[in-house]
Every structure is written in C-alpha cells, then in structure tokens.
C-alpha cells in the first residue's frame, strides 16, 4: 500500500470498531484482510489478547477497547469484517475492525487538536463528511502496551 505522507498532510485510514469511527496512519498499514478468526492466548493482557495467522507468523491482536471509553472488548469468539495488519515501529499487530474506508489524504490544516472527541490515544481529530473522527496515535498506543515487544518483530 503506497501511502507516503506528504509534508503538507497525512494519509489516514478510516476504520470503524463497533459504533466508533477512528482514523489511523495509513503508513502503518501493511495489509487490509477480510474477517479472520483470532485465538485467545491464556494469560494474555486485555490490550493484546491473542493472535491471528498472517504470512506464516502469529501476529498479536491489538484491542483498542481498553483505551477507548465506551468501546466493548473483543469477545473470544467474535469475528469482525476486516483485519488490518499494522507495522508500528518494530511491532507487527492486527487490528480487528468492523469496516474500513478508502485512505484519505488530509491536509495539515484539517488536523485539529482533539476537541469533539475524547479519546486518550488521539493526537488529532478530523471531520470526514459529518463525522468527527479521532486520529489514533499508534506509536503511543504500542508504547502503552509494551513498547517494541508488543508484536512480532520483523
């Protein structure tokens, strides 16, 4: 996926988890897959509760719910329509989402400090159509779940 960030803006992928629309940095996206069954691992944290198989690896599943007020944690047998494989620094992670839209090129002028959204992991917010979406800081998220050890190193 070619989504190089331009100096005048950012490439962002809108994703939906439950009723929440969020944006993530498209530069971190390695692949968007269909629905995948994930496997809970005994003793795992709520933020990284299990794995999916991807290209011959077990990739850690990232659940944003513990960080985002009002979002329910992913269930042990729950499947979602899309699986977004992310490369955040050295970490490879899978985000299970209900929907993903086309990558949006957002000019810097449209990136506003979080105001309407109240998500602790948001670095900015963007209005797309009539929806205000928080832009999730994936690097900060990964730091909070265990830094570079969060996912399979590439």
């Amino acid at each position, binding site marked *: 996926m070619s989504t190089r960030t331009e100096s005048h803006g950012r490439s962002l992928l809108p994703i939906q988890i439950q009723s929440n629309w969020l944006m993530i940095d498209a530069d971190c996206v390695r692949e968007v897959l269909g629905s995948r069954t994930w*496997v809970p691992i005994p003793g795992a944290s709520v933020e990284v509760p299990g*794995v999916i198989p991807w290209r011959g690896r077990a990739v*850690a599943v990232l659940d944003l719910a513990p960080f985002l007020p009002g979002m329910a944690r992913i269930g042990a047998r729950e499947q979602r329509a899309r699986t977004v494989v992310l490369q955040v620094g050295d970490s490879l992670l899978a985000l299970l989402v209900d929907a993903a839209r086309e990558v949006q090129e957002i000019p810097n002028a449209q990136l506003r400090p979080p105001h309407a959204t109240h998500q602790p992991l948001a670095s900015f917010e963007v209005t797309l159509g009539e929806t205000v979406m928080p832009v999730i800081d994936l690097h900060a998220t990964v730091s909070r779940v265990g830094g570079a050890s*969060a996912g399979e190193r590439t």
Partner: protein
Amino acid sequence: MTSTSPARTFLVVDDGRSPWGIDAASVTSITDERDWTGEPPRALPLAPVDEREDGEARRVLVAHRHVSSASARLPLLGCGRFSVELIPESDVLVLPPILRGWVSHVVFREGRPPLLIVDVDALAARLGAPSEDAPS
C-alpha cells in the same frame, strides 16, 4: 500427501475445546489418573478440569523439565483424546514476545480448534512447581 519439510512431534491432549500440545520428547510417562500414585498432578490454567463432562478419560502425563543440574518432573492432568502428532515445523508459529508465557507457540489447523503449544519450564514456573524432584 507427504511433506518433506522438517517436522516436530507433539503429544496432543484434545478435549475438543481447548487442545494443547507438548514436545513429545519431554513426556516420560502417561498414566490413567486412577492408577497415579505420585504427587497431585497439576491442571493447566485453561477450562477447569473438574468441570469437564463425565466419561472423558483423565490421564496424568509426566513432563521432564530442563532444570539446571537437577532432575525435575511435572505431572500434568489432561482429559480427552491423547495422540502423538507430527506437525510441520513451518506450521508451529512462535508467539510474539508480549504473548509468550507458558504457551509458547500456536498451530492453526484447518477445521479444528487451534493447538496451543506448552512450554514446560514456563508452565512449571507459572504453577509454582518445585525446581527439582524430592528425593525418593
């Protein structure tokens, strides 16, 4: 179809819900629970064994642990079907570091629940097992 890729041999304990496997080379014995006379076997921290359906075979498998300069065994309680499976090395996926504990690997299997591979030493630490066998 035969596979030419390297393979690993696991003892698989499968109750149809939460199958787990252990390196077959580390297993020193398997005994029906009714015939077991050693120290109380430990159950894996999965679904409680006591809540399993009646009629499922309960066996004690003794796993050898790699403890420095000491002999150590870990008796584990399992129920369901016990089998030895040869699994291609490429199918045995190591868990990411943040998830690696007493489960160290996972095997995804077509049409069957995924198989969790147990690290005996990490499991012993998790269960607080003694670091060496008591003298007999």
